[in-house]
């Protein structure tokens, strides 16, 4: 019998990444979500016709390595920038890459208006319930009881207010055609999230309107947990409120 043949079934780097090196923390969920995004773009054959708009957060470091034409937006402003790009390039695929601080704090208005307008772009939210980049402070998506630098004892509704469950909120807007929330908690979650990512971009390609993929990502640094406990801490906190699933599909 001849030797068995090896087939590569998983590249080290997704097609659209110039390098896998980055200085995000160990156990960070953001690069995992990034792979999902890039693989989807490549698999849908959109590599050469995509423009991305990147917000400001830890993920901003990927601006240097994403092999996609990019516009670096200011903190919170990516959906409007994406609108301008899409209006001038209606045949291209346009996405944003934002964090919860970027999208739900500083830029809440931008994403809601973009969604209500039914703008035919795809926003990708990396939701870790903290401003990772500034050192792990509470954001508008941090859930009650969640530990952050500004809520070391856990977020307290009376003192800090309540989280905004952004995916659900956006799903209520008529202009939103697709909303899905996944996570990178496990390989299974990654696979499910990837299906959502694909649907979101297909929604854009079918010109059905606004799409959002929210990905819950681990931030062991901001949550003050060991990297290995990131996924389970997410499951006990963020994922209890920002519940996973397809929230809207048109």
């Amino acid at each position, binding site marked *: 019998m001849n030797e068995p043949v*090896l087939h590569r079934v998983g590249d080290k780097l997704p097609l659209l*990444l110039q390098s896998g090196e980055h200085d*995000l923390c160990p156990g960070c*969920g953001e*690069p995992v979500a990034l792979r999902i995004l890039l693989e989807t773009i490549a698999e849908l054959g959109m590599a050469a016709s995509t423009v991305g708009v990147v917000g400001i957060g830890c993920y901003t470091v990927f601006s240097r390595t994403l092999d996609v034409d990019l516009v670096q937006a200011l903190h919170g402003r990516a959906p409007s920038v994406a609108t301008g790009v899409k209006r001038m390039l209606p045949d291209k695929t346009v996405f944003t890459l934002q964090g919860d601080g970027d999208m739900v704090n500083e830029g809440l208005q931008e994403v809601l208006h973009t969604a209500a307008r039914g703008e035919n772009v795809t926003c990708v939210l990396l939701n870790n319930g903290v401003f990772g980049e500034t050192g792990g402070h509470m954001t508008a998506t941090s859930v009650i009881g969640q530990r952050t630098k500004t809520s070391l004892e856990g977020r307290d509704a009376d003192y800090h207010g309540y989280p905004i469950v952004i995916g659900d909120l956006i799903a209520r807007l008529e202009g939103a055609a697709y909303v899905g929330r996944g996570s*990178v908690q496990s*390989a299974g979650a990654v696979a499910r999230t990837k299906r959502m990512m694909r649907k979101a971009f297909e929604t854009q390609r079918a010109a059905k309107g606004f799409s959002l993929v929210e990905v819950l990502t681990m931030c062991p640094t901001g949550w003050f947990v*060991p990297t*290995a406990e990131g996924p389970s801490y997410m499951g006990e906190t963020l994922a209890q409120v920002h519940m996973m699933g397809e929230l809207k599909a048109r």
Partner: protein
Amino acid sequence: MAHGAGVSETVLVRGTVRIDTEACKGCDLCIPACPPEVLVMSTDVNQTGYRYPELLAGCTGCRACLDVCPDFCFEVFKYDRPIEVAVERR
């Protein structure tokens, strides 16, 4: 243990991975992600000081490890047909 060490067994192997141990930041996320539990953390550390995963026999080439690794450390391969590998009994 009842069975003495060094007793050899056969394991069915459908795939394998190449691990960029120098890129690894030792986050441990790949370990529980691997369905057949064939990844274990090293005792050694890499140049940056992190422990990294090592592959035992029995990989299925499912790419779960690749999918969850934040540092792009894995490359995953599948054999066109399973092979049998003899391993020391753990």
